[in-house]
């Protein structure tokens, strides 16, 4: 059809329509206007992740971020949510390993309210005692549900094997015994030591002009100053496995087992990232979950889901294959997956497979950027990994430049089928 009206590359975010400004206290503001819908998204991150958690109080950063909106010096928990929900707005915080983040949205007319509540929650949380205890019960229930979830438990076990002795081996939400040990004073201290404007970025996307968005962020967060905001200590090296390590976690009474098999992966900023992500698409994403889906699901009928994923952040990542299978088929599925990994590092990918995945990456980009939320995460991605404001305009060229040899070299650099982490959780 010849109904192509918009120049697709111009509809992607780029230097002329992204506004970036660093406030005097260090907060980076990114905005992009979109007046097609009367709504607006506010997203961001700040440097207060679970890396700061002491082992015996693991889950502290998660507890703090979950408690930020439980009451501030100016408003009670109920008042905060009453103001938000009365206008159909939403705001929430979540913790990560290096950084923690927030996500909010509202009708454009309610952006000032959203930013005021964001600012109060970040700068002046009160951690009311009764609310902290209510939250603790909710967090502990979440952990009790996690213990029963075969997929969560397989992932947890996988991280323990792959990142043994490294902070990445620890779950951000902690364990029941560590969450029990966290006192209100710990929350107050963590907030005082680790929250601050340095290292923070905020993206505002939607029905608001750039200068107005920046003015509103300045009003809400521009005056925030923290003198002794602590830095993250340098992380130890991730030690590679010397041989394949398999572990199983039993959860009685379940109908299905989940398995995670994999190894280390690149950082987001590493040169190999693009070839790794293209390779991963061929291995366990493209079409109906790539080669892994083809072998485990389509040809063998062993699983409803079987796919690979790459998790690449600020530090070394992981490259994993996940599947949910009948408990009797765990070995069969594991063998098929390991065989595919062997084939992947021995033979690499075909020219056709690579061309398909490149076209897929380039074609799907506008889809991932159609909502305000999609654009906000793209802007934060640019900022966090220093990709450049023209990254999404250059994206097609970056994808096209990767070769089959790059994919093979990257696969061989990271995946050694004789040194895998294998985790299973099920009955």
């Amino acid at each position, binding site marked *: 059809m010849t109904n192509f009206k918009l120049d697709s590359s111009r509809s992607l975010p780029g230097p002329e329509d992204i506004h970036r400004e660093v406030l005097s206290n260090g907060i980076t503001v990114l905005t992009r206007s979109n007046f097609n819908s009367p709504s607006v998204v506010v997203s961001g991150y700040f440097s207060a992740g679970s890396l700061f958690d002491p082992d015996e109080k693991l889950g502290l950063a998660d507890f703090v971020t979950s408690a930020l909106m439980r009451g501030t010096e100016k408003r009670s928990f109920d008042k905060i949510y009453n103001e938000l929900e*009365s206008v159909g707005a939403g705001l929430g915080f979540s913790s990560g390993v290096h950084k923690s983040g927030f996500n909010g949205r509202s009708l454009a007319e309610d952006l000032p309210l959203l930013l005021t509540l964001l600012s109060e929650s970040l700068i002046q949380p009160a951690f009311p005692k009764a609310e902290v205890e*209510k939250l603790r019960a909710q967090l502990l229930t979440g952990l009790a549900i996690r213990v029963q979830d075969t997929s969560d438990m397989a992932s947890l076990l996988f991280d323990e094997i792959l990142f043994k002795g490294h902070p990445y081996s620890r779950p951000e939400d902690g364990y029941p015994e560590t969450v029990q040990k966290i006192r209100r004073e710990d929350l107050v201290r963590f907030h005082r030591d680790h929250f601050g404007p340095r290292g923070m970025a905020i993206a505002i996307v939607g029905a608001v002009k750039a200068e107005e968005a920046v003015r509103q962020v300045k009003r809400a967060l521009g005056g925030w100053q923290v003198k002794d905001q602590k830095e993250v200590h340098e992380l130890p090296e991730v030690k590679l496995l010397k041989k394949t390590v398999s572990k199983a976690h039993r959860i009685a009474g379940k109908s299905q087992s989940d398995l995670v098999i994999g190894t280390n992966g690149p950082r987001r900023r590493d040169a190999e990232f693009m070839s790794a992500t293209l390779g991963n698409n061929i291995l366990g994403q493209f079409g109906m979950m790539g080669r892994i889906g083809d072998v485990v699901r389509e040809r063998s009928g062993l699983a409803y889901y079987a796919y690979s994923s790459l998790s690449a952040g600020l530090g070394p990542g992981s490259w994993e294959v996940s599947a949910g299978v009948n408990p009797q088929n765990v070995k069969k599925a594991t063998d098929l997956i390991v065989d595919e990994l062997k084939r992947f590092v021995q033979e690499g990918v075909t020219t056709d497979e690579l061309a398909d995945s490149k076209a897929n990456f380039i074609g799907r980009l506008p889809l991932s950027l*159609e909502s305000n939320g999609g654009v906000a995460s793209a802007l934060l991605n640019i900022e966090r990994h220093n990709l450049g404001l023209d990254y999404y305009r250059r994206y097609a060229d970056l994808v096209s430049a990767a070769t089959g040899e790059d994919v093979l070299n990257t696969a061989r650099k990271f995946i050694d089928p004789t040194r895998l982490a294998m985790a299973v959780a099920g009955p």
Partner: protein
Amino acid sequence: MKNSHTQITLSNGLKVFLKEIHTAPIISSWLWYRVGSRDEVQGRTGISHWVEHMQFKGTPQFPANILDKSISREGGSWNAFTYMDWTAYFETMPADKIDIALRLESDRMVNSQFDANEVASERTVIISEREGSENEPMFLLGEAIQQSAFRIHPYHHEVIGDMVDLHTMTRDDLYSHYRTFYVPNNAVMALAGDFDTQTMLARIKELFEPIPGGTEPARLAREEPMQKGEVRLSVEGPGATSYVQVCYRFPFASHPDFFSLSVLDSLLAGPSNLNMFSGGISNKTSRLYRALVDKELAVSAHGGAQATIDPFLYSITMTVHPKRKPEEALAALDKEIQRVKAEKVSKEEITRAIKQARALFAYGSENITNQGFWMGYAEMFANYEWFQTYLDKLAAVTVKDIQRVANEYFVPQRRVVGTYIPLGN
């Protein structure tokens, strides 16, 4: 919300909706069939969902491995859903690549092969899908409640089907179900995005009009008799967490009371989000959150209203606080239900519910896929006008309406109360 759209029925009965949106170079194409788990008899439960899976297994023109690659290669996003009342397929593509999706859908409306080997391999995939669901306490509880709430009406079983039927259904059962329901006069096509309506319509006619219309399939609709007394049931399983789900009878989506009940849902439990491609909002100042979670009887409380052709259920789900008993949470819920029946709600609460709905609609309209979704979705249980006038109908709800529907629908004798009893880790 009231952007203009074009609506036309082709000579073979296929209903087509087209809505131009030129905000991004994207088109979302949806094809809806009036068939779902409510069209299944015992022995063949789960057949509609299995047929949906088989629609990805290829035709002579688009063999299985070609089919998924052709969409993915162009950067498309595609999927399918089976529900009680309908089955839907969508592709969201870069605008200049939409033709492949149209060709694929017109082809698999009639030419899917249902190869016996593919049926055999998909049988174990679907069994695995069901086993994954069985790992979840809320699936087990929900299934038990649904079976108990509907003895006569075919809403009684889960969309995935009963395990025994997944083991015994045959290739011919599946193929016959496909041929019966996959006819143009039993389908609705909806496209939203960056196209010219006349050009698009011409192409749709070219591809779909040669497909002959079939006999209009009869739909199963055995009316559920009035429930005469509260049903209580329990499901036991692993874990340490108790759940309680309370289900009241809810009217069909085009019933006038649906809108008053939607406002009531919003103020009781936070607004149910009907968008498929846009998240909801929190419910921490809803009446049930305040009475149950704030008071530490539950750690979460949610309401769920669904738009259906026949009367279905309104569910309230509570995750019980670890230090409390299910009956304590239920008693607190009953007090709130009693309150909304006995006392008038305030006008402000209604205004608030309407603003929440307006915001949810605005979030949903950011996304072309979601806009394509609505045109066909609304047709499946009412019509597109239902969606276009939704906010106006909410705005017309009065304080009196709320109290009336609370008394009419929240009737203890017509509810099912289910408890998940955890047996330990």
